[in-house]
């Protein structure tokens, strides 16, 4: 089912992730613009686009980590967070402090926290399950290491193992292949294929265009709006030079200029390097923590 932006298909109730007319703004500047997308079930999907295209933001909006200005996200047909327990998440590796006093096994066991619920401590069964997930990504022997002593690839595998421990049906991964060694890349690809064989859907933000045809079945070409979405190859393939050119080459300068004007009008603050710090509360991302306020666009 190939979709392009102007064409609005009926949303399928059984789609693992159905994004309907979603717009996300950051300080009134649109980061995602009217996104309409149904992820196919049981497929490996790559989200591809240039820096600042809103790839990470799309994943975060799907998880409810950033507020959507308009539109709706449905997970397995249910709106909002009703089906949240069916979603596994692999954040960007840089999003945590790797000097934190915690072992690899304890991080992986975090995947079981929701299942455990309030107050109940992590038990033997959880640790066993976590060990099994570590074995699936080939790092069973690193369970007791403090996470800062792991290599970049091993750290990424810890995050993948934690997502596996969530036993989800839909996995959202933010650049799982970024900065990993060759053997980690192979290990992750094997896990993704395992998940697909088990009927799971995996959606990855992906940077390496060369490996898209090898690793993924479907692709979502994104640059603030959806450029094209559909199979990577075969009939109706959307992973074409023309679409890629539209994604990476054709900058929507008018939309950008309109966004700048909107941001200026909203905050009344001069443009320049500081333009992102416009006074505007309504769309700031984050909860109670004062450090939550991002100092750069979340779409990076």
């Amino acid at each position: 089912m190939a979709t392009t932006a102007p064409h609005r298909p009926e949303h399928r109730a059984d789609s693992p992730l159905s994004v309907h007319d979603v717009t996300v703004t950051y300080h009134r500047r649109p980061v995602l613009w009217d996104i309409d997308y149904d992820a196919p079930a049981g497929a490996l999907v790559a989200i591809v686009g240039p820096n600042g295209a809103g790839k990470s933001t799309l994943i975060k909006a799907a998880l409810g980590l950033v507020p959507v200005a308009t539109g709706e996200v449905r997970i397995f047909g249910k709106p909002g967070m009703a089906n949240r327990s069916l979603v596994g998440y692999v954040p960007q590796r840089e999003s945590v402090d790797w000097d934190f006093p915690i072992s690899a096994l304890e991080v992986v066991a975090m995947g079981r926290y929701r299942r455990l619920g309030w107050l109940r401590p992590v038990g033997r069964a959880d640790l066993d399950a976590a060990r099994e997930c570590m074995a699936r990504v080939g790092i069973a022997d690193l369970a007791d290491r403090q996470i800062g002593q792991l290599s970049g690839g091993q750290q990424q595998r810890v995050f993948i193992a934690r997502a596996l421990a969530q036993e989800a049906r839909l996995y959202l991964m933010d650049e799982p292949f970024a900065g990993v060694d060759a053997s980690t890349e192979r290990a992750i690809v094997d896990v993704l294929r395992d998940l697909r064989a088990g009927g799971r859907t995996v959606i990855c933000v992906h940077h390496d265009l060369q490996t898209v045809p090898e690793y993924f079945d479907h692709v979502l070409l994104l640059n603030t709006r959806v450029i094209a979405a559909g199979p990577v190859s075969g009939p109706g393939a959307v992973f074409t030079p023309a679409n890629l050119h539209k994604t990476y080459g054709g900058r929507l300068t008018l939309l950008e200029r309109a966004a700048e004007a909107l941001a200026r009008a909203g905050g009344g603050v001069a443009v320049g390097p500081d333009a992102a710090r416009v006074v505007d509360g309504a769309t700031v991302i984050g909860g109670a923590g004062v450090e939550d306020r991002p100092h750069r666009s979340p779409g990076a």
Partner: protein
Amino acid sequence: MSELWRILTLQAGYNTSVVVLGTTVLGAAAGLAGALALLRKRVLISDSLAHATLPGLAGAFMIAAALGADPKSLPVLLAGATVTGVLGVLSVQWLSRYSRLSEDAALAVVLSVYFGVGVVLLSIVQRLSVGGQAGLSRFIFGQTAAMSAGDVWLMGGVAIGAVLIVALLFKELRLVCFDRGFGRAQGWPIGGLDVLLLALITLVTVAGLQAVGLILVVALIVTPGAAARFWTDRLGALLVLSAMLGAVSGYLGSAASAVWPKAPAGAVIVLAASAIFVVSLVIAPRRGLLARTAALLSQRVRIQREHTLRSLYEWHEAAAPGAVRRDAVIPAGAAIRAGSAWSRRLAMRGLAWRGLVCAAPGGWMLTEEGWAEAERTTRIHRLWEAYLIRVGGHDPLHADDPADLIEHALDPAIVAELERTVAGERAMPRSPHEMRGEGGRA
């Protein structure tokens, strides 16, 4: 038996014992909450919080006096302190979210504005006609002597509450401190848990005002956790150790200030905590300065040793091309490696001390062990050179130095991978470049 010993063993009278016990318990609570604040990167906000309690203390005093209540009542004063302390935290959050101020500027603004208002209110309080104003200044620098048994119960309650919260919500607090995004994606109320942690910090700060004073209470919160971090990589152990170090600081500090009543208790307690921190910083295994310096030095020595061994192997190759023999005697004056004759002699002494070379008539000879080690380091060096030339496209004449930089860090897995990549090099590879200098490396 000295005075200090009697105080430490709680034999110096009821009042002193009460003070020592109270500050010990307070230190434990502050260490526990502080370690979490440290991991959640909330330390500076607790400093702003502490300074923002001053207008609350003065305000509560004035209101109580105006209403005819006892203005010196501790619960009344601490209630006032809590109110403005929380207002201070909210101001920081509001400023850094809705103004263009960065967070550190917001922290500084709130700290100074609230503290300034507090100082002004304090000067008004001094001119009131009610008594007891002098007692307020103890909240600035801390004064343990004024502590009553009731105050100790209050601190004990705070400490037990803190331990209970942390024990029950250990898993949730760990999640909040480590990975908020993942926690929120799982559906945990991360904002609510953050507020809980902040409430815990507020509770400990307010409870510590009387003993340590609002200027230094942040030190009691941050120092034990920072010291404990040097000793462990486990969160559970870190929290227990931080509470223990906080308790020891409170215990030693209050005992010392009982011996020298002129010294402000808060400062002495904080000095005790700082001493523990400095000792940890220096002597902790692995993370401490000494351990890290020792590790760095031993690595340097190992690299020098490996260079010398490789030079010796290359000397053997040059001395008997095609038929290298371990038991050839290396003349004492042979130019086996760069550096002065003195440094060469030192290097050989070092090898001899490790049993890698032994004295032979007219010079030195490699031992069995030394020969194996020399072969191994030379082989790794040449494999790495070959790899850099073939895969990395290095000029054969210039692969030597980049190889030098990294070969000492290669673990067996990487060496095996090297052997696979640079196939057919299982025996000793030939050096890709001429040896510099006669009979070895210059």
